[in-house]
């Protein structure tokens, strides 16, 4: 048996790697990868606690919902990234600082 706290520490490490990617990357796709890391860390926590909740299976069901929502978020944000690239010819978020046309 693997103790529950080890899952939590692995997911904490993955979450902080995601925070680093979101804060310091100069490419919108890499920021999206960082967000996916954070979501995966949260899903790992859901699944780890779900081991002690056999009949309701709430952790596993909501992990499935989280995976579906992450996929939807990726589809929409990649469409936005492509539109931004078409307009600005770059996807570096530090250079995209105009709201107007």
């Amino acid at each position, binding site marked *: 048996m693997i*103790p*529950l*706290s080890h*899952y*939590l*520490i*692995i997911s*904490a490490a*993955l*979450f*902080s*790697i995601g*925070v*680093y990617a979101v*804060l*310091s*990357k100069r*490419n919108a*796709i*890499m920021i999206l*990868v960082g967000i*996916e*890391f954070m979501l*995966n860390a949260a*899903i*790992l926590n859901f*699944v780890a606690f*779900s*081991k*002690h*909740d*056999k*009949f*309701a*299976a*709430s*952790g*596993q*069901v*909501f*992990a*499935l*919902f989280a*995976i*579906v*929502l*992450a*996929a*939807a*978020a*990726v*589809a*929409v944000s*990649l*469409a936005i*990234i*492509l*539109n931004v*690239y078409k307009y600005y010819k770059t*996807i570096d978020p530090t250079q995209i600082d105009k709201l107007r046309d």
Partner: protein
Amino acid sequence: MGIEQLVFYVFAVIVLASALLVVANKNLVRSIFLFFITLFSMAGLFVFALADFVAITQIVIYVGGVLVLMIFAFLLSNKHILDNPDNLKTGVIGLHHLPGILVAFLFFIVIVWSVSLAKVEQLEWIQHSGDNTLKPSDNTIHNIGINLMTRYLLPFEVVSVFLMMALIGAAHLARKERKP
């Protein structure tokens, strides 16, 4: 240490090492393919938490769908990187990344500290779960299916409507402008 622990920690090391390489790598193509390895070994960790259906879903949706989408968007939006890939090969993390590293490290310290304060093994509902604890021989897919259609029917429907909205929105955003 049994074989179960050994394989679990090997998977954990692969997850963390490949995630670190993803963020440390300057080459975007390599980062995205290393992201693939991270997601695959996350599915391995899900199997060790006795959630085999979530692991399969992770492989099908993330590795099959999200990753292909990311490579697609990358190929469409980074033409200058693909044209001259040589000027990106500076390996070391520079000093301007220091605030990001600091904030991420503080996050890690705070989360680990709160995990150690929470004492998850001694939580009351986990101590008394007894019969409610999953065993490796249990059939979780059966259980998830029944729960999805009874107890969690409302969130299930909301998620399906949301997914349709996201699909329509993505298709609308990515379409070509028609000439007036």
